């Protein structure tokens, strides 16, 4: 069992000297001036600059970072997606548009004839990745959406998403053998 106490916070009682503004202003100035001079120091490792020059020094995103979508590929370079529409069903922003088509390979049957994600409308919740039963859609591309001047540029089509994608080794469909 945890031990939970109630405690009263201490309010500051000021003396006359502290009431004269001067000590606290000096103390404050010492903090800010400390930062100022530390960050001017010629030794770069001593500086405590926290921000970064973004475009020149890109951030490393953690592995789990949800960025742009990508469509994974089969071993033969075909798209893994079979247009089951699970992702567009679960998508709270309704940003995935899929039109299924008949694939030439009867072993694949169904594939996305049209697969468009409106990346501007996407709220990056990652539910589509969880909903995908084929390991076809992922958001671990490690890049975020670039700025666009044209809204239509942010509609990512199937081929563009496949370019971002990579090979998925996930096994699919269980064991099957000809009878």
């Amino acid at each position, binding site marked *: *069992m*945890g*031990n*939970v*106490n*109630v*405690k*009263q*916070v*201490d*309010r*500051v009682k*000021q003396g006359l000297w*502290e*009431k*004269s*503004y001067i000590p*606290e*202003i000096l*103390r*404050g100035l010492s*903090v*800010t001036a400390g*930062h100022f001079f530390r960050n001017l120091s010629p030794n770069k490792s001593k500086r405590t600059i*926290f921000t970064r020059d973004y475009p020149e020094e890109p951030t490393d*995103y*953690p*592995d*789990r*970072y*949800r960025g742009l979508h990508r469509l994974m590929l089969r071993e033969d370079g075909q798209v893994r997606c079979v247009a089951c529409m*699970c992702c567009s*069903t*679960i998508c*709270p*922003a309704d940003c995935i548009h899929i039109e299924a088509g008949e694939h030439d390979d009867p072993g694949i049957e169904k594939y996305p004839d049209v697969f468009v994600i409106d990346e501007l409308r996407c*709220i*990056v*919740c*990652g*539910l589509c990745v*969880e*909903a995908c*039963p*084929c*390991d076809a859609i992922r*958001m671990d591309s490690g890049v975020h959406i670039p700025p666009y001047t044209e809204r239509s540029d942010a509609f990512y089509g199937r081929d563009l998403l496949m370019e971002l994608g990579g090979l998925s080794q*996930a*096994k*699919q*469909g*269980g*064991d099957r053998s000809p009878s």
Partner: protein
Amino acid sequence: MAEDIYEPIDQDVHTEPMILQMGPSHPATHGTVRFTLTLEGEKIIKCETEVGYLHRGFEKEVENSTWTQVFPYTDRLNYVSPLLNNFGYSLAVERLLEIDVPPRCNWIRTLMGEISRLSDHLTCTGAAALELGAMSAFLYAIEGRELVWDLIEEVTGARLTVSYGRIGGLKDDLTEGFEERWKYTKKRLFEIREEIGQLLTRNRIFLDRFQGTGVLTPDMALSYGYTGPCLRSTGVDYDVRKDHPYFMYDEVDFDVPVGSKGDNYDRYLVRMDEIVQSIRIIDQCLEKMEPGPINSDDPRVMLPEKEKVYNTIEGMISHFKIIFEGIQVPPGEVYSYTEAGNGELGYYIVSNGTGKPWKIHVRSPSLIMMGGIHKLIEGGLIADIIPTFDTVNMIGGECDK
């Protein structure tokens, strides 16, 4: 009412009170709230608060989404501490489903929730300093928040809109190097808290602005339904984590800081102290946590493992059913409440047994606090709105649900 105000001023010289529209787009009304102030000089003799400019439609929107799809919406309630909202909602639905989650899940929820609370309090105190003009203190606080968000990003995959909670579990376990990163963050957080304290806590300008302004009495706070740091600043020691423990809060030691006067300064101190308490709780969580599953094993609720989805028809079927029908929550209703950044965050959920909520009402602390804020503002000066409004910490997303 208005006539009463005019009369005494009218008697000697012909003057009349100035009506000032403060907000909804005003630098101090972060988010969107409107104050209609009746001013006598700079003194506020009447304040009418109006909320609802954010047009989120949370409660209506979720009626059209499955139980799982609600998570992104809850992220945007109190967008400074989205994890707390996620977990509060998870807990509510789990209570309705009557399922238990594994202990590790609860530990992680406690831990990540407190991390989120850190972000909330750092933002709140920082923003209060910023709007008083102490820009540097704000940016130091934001630096601390960035460190906290880095942790959140590493675990959840996003900084702000995390969507990390799941009904019956979590999206992911903690990452491997989490503990080391936390140790570094903790060290920096203490330094930052110290620096902010040096800049503000004893500074007379700051004290003059904060002490004795926005005074809330315990009676008033209770009758207006204030909770969280605002209520505790008046000396009432109500904390959901203490009084109705959930997750693992009954397994950890922590203090509940309370104030005495209920003014802005007390609220500031309470928040600064809660930062320390949250750090304590996180440390204990990491210490006491044991490896294990993070998700409930109820097949009605949890999506099957990916391996099974890909390769067995049984996994595929339950995956599909949960995706397109949603989790089937039995009919019933529940009110479940947790301690969020600003106070008691309650979800009142009614289910009609389908995959979509029939109704979700959120008892969001900010909206309720806006109901009584005029009492804190009236009688003060225009400039007093700023610290009062900041320490009450209204979050637009939560206010205009």
